[in-house]
């Protein structure tokens, strides 16, 4: 009952004219970011974090969640029309969405993507409201040992599932943890790896680093790639058919559950939500042969899965302080900037906050429904703007985004250095998402490891013998062992569809 009261309060606060304007404006901006190949949801949330620093906390989080949801949804447009996923989460939508477009059903494909996205988000919102308080209550029993393994599991899972080989992902995660240790040590305030520089004592700030990793690196990648042909497409009706929804309700439900579960796993993200849902739908379908050739069910599964993963990724971010995906990691940092303390104590200190986020995610979902049904054609003009114009403007925003939080040119240099390093590493097949998770979770891993060892007087036993620690340690161990070739062959450890 308390939960419903909190949710009612949250929704009432979101009904003001400014809040509606923020929600619609931010969702539109998010859709445009998602539409443009190369601009990711993570970059969108990072850039908008810098733009919303001076806003009221709940308004800022409203804008950021709307950008996040809008970007993941918007990426399906380019996947359908150009066969280029606007964000990584929409790669699965290319398979059937673009085939439908080639068959002259681009509008229908967009309608299905809208239906799937909205259904996935709504299922996720329900899970967010139901499971976050439960998980937060359970997490009150967690100590340093459990938080150490949770952090490690997040980085390891992200590394395992986002790169070409897990070893490369894990190395990126470790790099992120190392970068997080630069600056004043959080336990004894000792300067680490600052080389005598005053600017370095504050450490490498998350937002400039993320803007570099996802913004500047992307500008370099896009400008190095061959020029794309301008979009030419005629659209049929974008209104989803009720028949499509009713016929595939099982697929929607299954994909929603898979997306939410994948989202909850620390550090895995929306793209895995889409691929896993797509693979499960293909296995269960009676029309398996249509998958990859313009299957409505396949597109529905992919779009439901990736959007359900968004609220899913917010569950561990709010309840444990361990984000479920890279954009959720940035969002969690923004919540901290705006005075919230995501983690088990959030439900004790700010119980209303969780329901505010639930209400905001619901509003964001309704906003994508509005834009998905009403403004498809006008929004697509953005695809006609050449990259030679968009990219320098994006870079100027990256520069000011990096600069604006603390107003130091040092942060602009952080953005440039991280951007160049991430660009070079990406060219060699190293994924950036584990780096982000490492950067965000580095602090909690560092503090938890050292506090745990002090508590146990140097004994590693509690890290492996406490029940929850043991489960998490086994998970990390299983991820490691999955890379031993003989074991992988024997047990057929996870391969991405």
């Amino acid at each position: 009952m308390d939960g419903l009261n909190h949710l009612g309060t949250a929704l009432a606060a979101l009904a003001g004219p400014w809040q509606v304007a923020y929600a619609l404006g931010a969702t539109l901006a998010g859709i445009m970011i998602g539409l443009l190949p190369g601009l990711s949801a993570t970059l969108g949330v990072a850039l908008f974090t810098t733009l919303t620093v001076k806003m009221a906390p709940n308004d800022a989080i409203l804008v950021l969640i709307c950008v996040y949801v809008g970007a993941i949804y918007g990426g399906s447009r380019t996947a359908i029309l150009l066969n280029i996923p606007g964000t990584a989460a929409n790669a699965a939508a290319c398979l059937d969405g673009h085939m439908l477009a080639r068959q002259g059903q681009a509008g229908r494909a967009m309608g299905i993507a809208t239906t799937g996205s909205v259904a996935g988000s709504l299922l996720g919102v329900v899970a967010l409201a139901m499971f976050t308080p439960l998980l937060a209550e359970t997490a009150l029993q967690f100590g340093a040992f459990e938080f150490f393994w949770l952090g490690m599991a997040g980085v390891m899972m992200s590394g395992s599932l986002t790169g070409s080989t897990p070893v490369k992902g894990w190395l990126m995660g470790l790099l992120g943890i190392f970068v997080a240790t630069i600056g004043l040590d959080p336990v004894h305030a000792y300067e680490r790896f600052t080389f005598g520089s005053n600017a370095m004592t504050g450490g490498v700030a998350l937002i400039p680093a993320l803007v570099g990793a996802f913004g500047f690196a992307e500008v370099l990648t896009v400008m190095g790639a061959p020029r794309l042909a301008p979009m030419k497409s005629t659209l049929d009706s974008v209104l989803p058919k009720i028949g499509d929804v009713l016929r595939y309700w099982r697929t929607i439900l299954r994909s929603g559950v898979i997306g939410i579960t994948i989202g909850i796993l620390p550090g895995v993200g929306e793209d895995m939500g889409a691929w896993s849902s797509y693979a499960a739908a293909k296995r269960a379908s009676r029309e398996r042969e249509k998958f990859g050739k313009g299957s409505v069910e396949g597109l529905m599964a992919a779009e439901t899965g990736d959007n359900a993963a968004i609220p899913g990724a917010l569950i561990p971010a709010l309840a444990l302080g361990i984000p479920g995906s890279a954009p959720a990691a940035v969002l969690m940092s923004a919540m901290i900037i705006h005075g919230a303390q995501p983690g088990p104590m959030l439900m004790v200190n700010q119980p209303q906050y969780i329901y505010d986020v639930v209400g905001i995610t619901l509003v964001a979902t309704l906003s994508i429904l509005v834009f998905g049904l009403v403004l498809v054609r006008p929004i697509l003009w953005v695809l006609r703007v050449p990259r030679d114009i968009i990219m320098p403007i994006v870079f100027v925003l990256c520069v000011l985004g990096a600069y604006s939080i603390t107003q130091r040119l040092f942060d602009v240099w952080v953005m440039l250095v991280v951007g160049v390093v991430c660009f070079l590493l990406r060219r060699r097949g190293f994924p950036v998402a584990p780096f982000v998770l490492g950067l965000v979770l580095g602090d909690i891993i560092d503090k938890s490891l050292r506090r745990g060892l002090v508590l146990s007087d140097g004994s590693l036993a509690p890290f492996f013998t406490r029940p929850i620690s043991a489960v998490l340690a086994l998970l990390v161990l299983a991820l490691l062992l999955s890379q031993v070739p003989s074991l992988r062959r024997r047990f057929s450890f996870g391969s991405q569809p």
Partner: protein
Amino acid sequence: MSRRADLLTAATWGAVGTAILVASWRMNRLDDRGISPWSAPGLTPGVVGALMMLLALVLALQARHAAADADEPVPQPGALGRTLLALALCIGFAGVALGHGLPFVVEGAAFIFVFTTLFSLPVWRAEHRVVRGLLQTLAIAVLASSFIAWLFESVFLVRLP
């Protein structure tokens, strides 16, 4: 990825891991403050450095056993030149010009104009619309830079560099 490039990448990661481990080992353990050695500031980065070395070794072994025909993908023609040009322009703007005299709005407009012009000029030439392209780009650059500067300065109260 080519086997040689992967071996080189693994060696680089190994060197970075070693440097972090050595620097962490040599870091002050704050014995003089009487703190527990298990909370020494170098502990976590030291573990990270050691793990990096281990994974770099695994990466090198994987590269050694990779198929010999896994060659480097053929680079797109002109890709390196375009990337280097973008890199030079971005660093020139953000790392060199920014905060050294000119107002941000001017620097931003100049950057957008030069960037767009250099990358679009071949297309404009092919389509015989160089002058129109230049004028359009100038207008876009001035408008975009002015709007961004106004947004950050007046709405978000950021003192621009």
